[in-house]
């Protein structure tokens, strides 16, 4: 563990504390006492039930979802950039998020019947949509026994447009126009549906993603040098590519299902991290995870706090805060890729 990694972890810890104790409804000390009560398994006086619900059942799962989603987007961004050897790559580049969005819109706007309940069916529809998009992209790019990165990118962009058009069509021809506002809020990326139970699936997916990518850290370094030299380094280029795509759709699909399409985190974070850690994936991946997690947590804090009692979709904040930061970073550092 390097010094920066420990520093980031400490930052993440305090960010969570600040996030759960910020807001008009519960005072800072009250929030801390709720956390203390739960973390010590009921030591001390039982907290006020309203404060308890706000801190433990609303803010904490939301903060953790921000960490998981931000971290997941960070590592998948880093992996995608290695996969396609292109600094513009991000988790959504292969059309996964557009597919997930289309699937969710289909369900949300009343074209698909709710299977179990709204809370369960929408993520499932989003996941199915994302999977559908990646299968199309994959079958186009993976023909002739060789996965072409160029075809992957082009097919990804094309399928993203197709799915985007499909979403717009669904939205405009919806039999339930009253729901447009809600679907819009979700589409822009928001963590407002976080509960302890919605954390489970994205946590598992992101954890699988993180561990698998850490195992693949060395081959990923090789991938950055190009297919042929990676091959000569002993990297099973084709199978690594396939694994990366499956991981990306798994993680991204589950993230989009939980929080909508939150833009820019997966693009910005790996670049910002590389300017500090260098390009070795053994460092880039864990640092991208923590940096993405902390960034999204703070962005969500802004989204919650900017309007008292009300909230904004966090996707708006990540773009508003992230992009200028990214541009400054690009301008100031003599940043190189690969």
């Amino acid at each position, binding site marked *: 563990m390097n010094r920066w990694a420990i520093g980031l972890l400490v930052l993440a810890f305090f960010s969570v504390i600040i996030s759960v104790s910020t*807001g*008009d*409804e*519960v005072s800072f000390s009250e929030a801390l006492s709720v956390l203390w009560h739960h973390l010590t398994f009921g030591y001390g006086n039982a907290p006020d*039930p*309203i404060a308890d*619900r*706000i801190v433990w*059942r*609303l*803010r904490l799962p939301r903060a953790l979802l921000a960490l998981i989603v931000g971290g997941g987007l960070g590592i998948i961004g880093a992996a995608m950039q290695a996969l396609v050897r292109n600094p513009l790559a991000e988790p959504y580049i292969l059309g996964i998020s557009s597919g997930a969005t289309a699937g969710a819109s289909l369900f949300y706007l009343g074209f698909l019947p709710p299977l179990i*309940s*709204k*809370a369960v069916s929408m993520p499932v529809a989003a996941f199915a949509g994302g999977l559908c998009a990646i299968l199309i992209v994959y079958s186009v790019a993976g023909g002739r026994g060789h996965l072409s990165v160029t075809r992957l990118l082009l097919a990804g962009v094309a399928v993203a447009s197709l799915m985007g058009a499909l979403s717009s069509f669904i939205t*405009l021809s919806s039999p339930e*126009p*009253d*729901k447009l*506002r*809600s679907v819009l*809020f*979700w589409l822009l990326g928001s963590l*407002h*549906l976080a*509960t302890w139970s919605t954390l489970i699936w994205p946590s598992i997916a992101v954890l699988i993603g993180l561990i698998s990518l850490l195992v693949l850290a060395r081959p990923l370094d090789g991938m950055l040098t190009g297919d042929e030299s990676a091959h000569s380094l002993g990297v099973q280029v084709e199978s690594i590519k396939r694994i990366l795509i499956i991981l990306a759709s798994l993680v991204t699909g589950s993230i989009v299902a939980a929080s909508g399409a939150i833009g820019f985190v997966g693009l910005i974070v790996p670049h910002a991290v590389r300017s500090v850690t260098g390009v070795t994936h053994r460092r880039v991946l864990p640092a991208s995870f923590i940096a993405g997690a902390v960034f999204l947590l703070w962005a969500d804090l802004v989204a*919650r706090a900017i*309007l*008292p*009692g*009300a*909230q*904004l979709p966090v996707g708006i904040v990540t773009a508003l805060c992230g992009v200028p930061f990214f541009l400054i970073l690009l301008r100031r550092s003599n940043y190189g890729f690969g």
Partner: protein
Amino acid sequence: MRQAYLLCLLFIGCSSSFPGERTVEDDLGRTVVLPPTIERITTLAPSVTELAFAAGAGSKIVGVSTFDDYPPGIDTLPRFDMLPTDFEAIVALDPELVLASEQVNSLKDIDIFSSSGIPVYFVAVNTLPDVTRAIRALGELFGTTEAATRRAIQLEDSLAQLSALTASLSERPRTLFLIDDVTLYAFGQGSYIHDMIDLAGGHSITQTMTTRFPVLTDEFVLDARPEVIVGSFGLQYDATKLVSHHATWDIVPAVVSGRVYGLHPDPYLRPGPRLVSGAWALARILHPDTVIDP
């Protein structure tokens, strides 16, 4: 050449002043130039259709949007799409005036209509008194003052009756009105909904929120402790769904005492004459013992 032609058109448009032409100011403060009499209207939103009917001008409406479903008199009228606005269909109906709603329609639309020579009048209903004010204004616009005044007085009487029942009530339940039960859209500052809740004998907990349609956080609702939660979820709404979407609300007073109600959406989401019956329905929910029927 083409530009010169357009410029010419522009001049004709500006200087033309037919005898009897009148200028009025609409609810957005825009100056609207109208022909002396208006016989053909199209309405761009269900709320303004209802207002025009209330003003006695229903028979002048020649087309309504696909969202319109009230009053029954519109069943046979031609329809046009509003998402996005089907300008061709509307212009083809040859209206002398297009009535728009400040809540729903965009100012951008008027450019297209004014370039086709069709004046657009915007109606804004942001308070309960705005309803009858708008009806009277439309009555004057369409020369149906008598019918409009009659209807306005009727509605005002009904509001006064309700006010007489509720004004003196000391117990005014803290009320939350929701537009959506999952993503918590509500009405913020400057909405008629707070007038309705107030008249119905309640206290709206979102009336000081700074945005027009805030998306509430779950913790705001927990902290504000509403005693009644009503939403435009339809009369068949199963109140247990609200707690299944927002599990932490099990201790919110409205949930504890079973005072969560789905309402017919139209009398609350369409700022028109039916707001009055909406206020009555709300009063019957908030004070079932005091408010029996109009």
